[in-house]
């Protein structure tokens, strides 16, 4: 009935009720707005310092992108390779840790019995609404006291597990993993952690991959706290972009070449896993 409805033709009835060309035109405009700023930065980033001032500038890229990128990479105060390496380390370690601890906690909330479970889960969800960013002053004081300022640990440790991750994994595991499977594991004599490791963890794999992806992007693009606690000699990519801007604000061709360099890794990730990102956002929305 629903499938053959003229309103909502779905699935097999793909030829019925295609939207009008206006819809596609509208989407094309949206698409243009999505891509254009990146194209613009390539346009400027492949020109030279005069491109931006040229009233008759071409809409085709110039030939200077490699040279501009080299200026970014060779600039000592920008520390490009170091910041790239740091971003990779921080994002990877944080993602791995968030996935592990969130899955562990999510498994406990979804499948184990313990006192005050509901209240604790509500507490976890409530903390997602707490603007913890506002605690930066004491956090910085603490990091200074430990002598951690300027080190990657100061960026990694506060992000090791997230409330969103715990909530996300709880939701997924409670519907994806049958209780009988957990019980069967227990009856076969596995202890609690073995049950988690051999039964809970494998069943959570799809959601864990999604969580890893989003945590990676969030960490990669994060600026405020790294900017405060790191310095220009040991930066992550966003922090080194701020340095780049301060050094080259006159020559936008180099600044925007640097912007593109810093964005390329995530563009590659998007090409590989864009589908999963879309699916992840839509699944999260239904559950949230």
């Amino acid at each position, binding site marked *: 009935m629903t499938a053959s*409805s003229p309103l909502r033709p779905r699935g097999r009835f793909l030829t019925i009720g295609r939207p009008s060309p206006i819809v596609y035109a509208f989407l094309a405009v949206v698409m243009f707005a999505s891509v254009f700023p990146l194209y613009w930065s390539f346009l400027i980033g492949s020109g030279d310092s005069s491109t931006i001032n040229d009233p008759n500038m071409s809409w085709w890229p110039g030939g200077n992108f490699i040279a501009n990128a080299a200026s970014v990479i060779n600039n000592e105060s920008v520390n490009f390779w170091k910041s790239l390496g740091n971003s990779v380390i921080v994002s990877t370690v944080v993602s791995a840790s968030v996935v592990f601890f969130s899955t562990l906690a999510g498994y406990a909330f979804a499948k184990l*019995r313990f006192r005050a479970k509901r209240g604790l889960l509500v507490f976890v969800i409530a*903390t997602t609404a707490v603007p913890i960013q506002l605690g930066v002053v004491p956090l910085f004081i603490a990091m200074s006291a430990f002598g951690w300022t300027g080190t990657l640990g100061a960026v990694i440790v506060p992000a090791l597990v997230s409330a969103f991750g715990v909530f996300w994994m709880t939701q997924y595991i409670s519907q994806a993993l049958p209780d009988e499977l957990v019980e069967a594991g227990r009856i076969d004599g596995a202890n609690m952690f073995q049950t988690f490791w051999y039964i809970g963890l494998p069943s959570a794999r799809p959601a864990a991959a999604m969580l890893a992806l989003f945590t990676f992007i969030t960490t990669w*693009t994060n*600026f405020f706290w790294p900017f405060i606690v790191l310095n220009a000699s040991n930066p992550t990519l966003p922090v080194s972009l701020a340095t780049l801007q301060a050094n080259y604000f006159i020559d936008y061709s180099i600044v925007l070449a640097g912007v593109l360099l810093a964005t390329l890794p995530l563009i590659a990730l998007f090409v590989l896993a864009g589908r999963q990102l879309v699916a992840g956002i839509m699944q999260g929305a239904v559950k949230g």
Partner: protein
Amino acid sequence: MTTSTLRVAQRTPRRIALSQKLGRWDIRFSPYLYISPFFLLFAVVGLFPLLYTGWVSLHAWDLIGGQGAFIGADNFFWVLQQQKFWIALRNTFSIFLLSSVPQIIIALVIAAVLDTNLRGKTFWRMGVLLPYIVMPVAVSLIFSNMYGDKYGLVNTLLGYVGIPGIQWHSNPLASQFAIATMVNFRWTGYNALILLAGMQAIPRDYYEAATIDGAGALRRFFSITVPQLRPTLIFVIITATIGGLQIFDEPRLFDQYGTGGANSQWLTLTIYLYNLGWGQLNFGRAAAVAWLLFLVIVLIGLVNLGITRRIASNEGRKS
């Protein structure tokens, strides 16, 4: 032979008792152990810093010198007497409204369009999500170039249609508009996908019944889609509020000085917090701003909660 049998018989019960005890501890305490990392970390890097911010705000506290004398609410009085604080508060609201209102409306329209029976669904969905992977810092650098006062792309295009160039950096409202565009660029598509998921969860019978009753597409959108989407909309609005009121990255890189403009045109509360703490090295005052911003967010959150409750009771009445 006899002795060994006897020994086994003697030992076995004790062993079982021990392993049973361990097993019971395992069952009893493992759940708490598994959830403890979150609670420990939240206590140390979330809750404690937020509370300690209150303590710092009551002291003269210097980035280098550390804790000074207890001065009561002096930091709060000082901050509240600064014109800059009020400008920053106004700007924060202004950027927040300029970004969230059009963003949610456009996201709704995009979601409605994506919810039609499109050819190449995945392609369009991925397309609207692309900006999400560009870091805010990069977005800010690209847009501050396009919004250049003299040679920027936007002003060049405006020139083609005979509109004189806008001073995107010196005019407060124009600069806030430019910064709001950056936020919208990055988040509109993301929110559209969340709303799209919400739309797909609406029972299709509603639409059929409405069509039979003679409702057109527009009427169906406003009478079915929007009301049914309220919970999802509230989720989107609350997330946008918490993030939007703490905005820092985009305005920070809107010019090369990063202080929010020569006349505080686009100074936000979080930039003000940063400038006080790490520019003027005055942690006491920075902490006071942090607490005030926290109160603002809680206040707006309560307003949101009120709206949520009203909508929930509306739904209750309907069913």
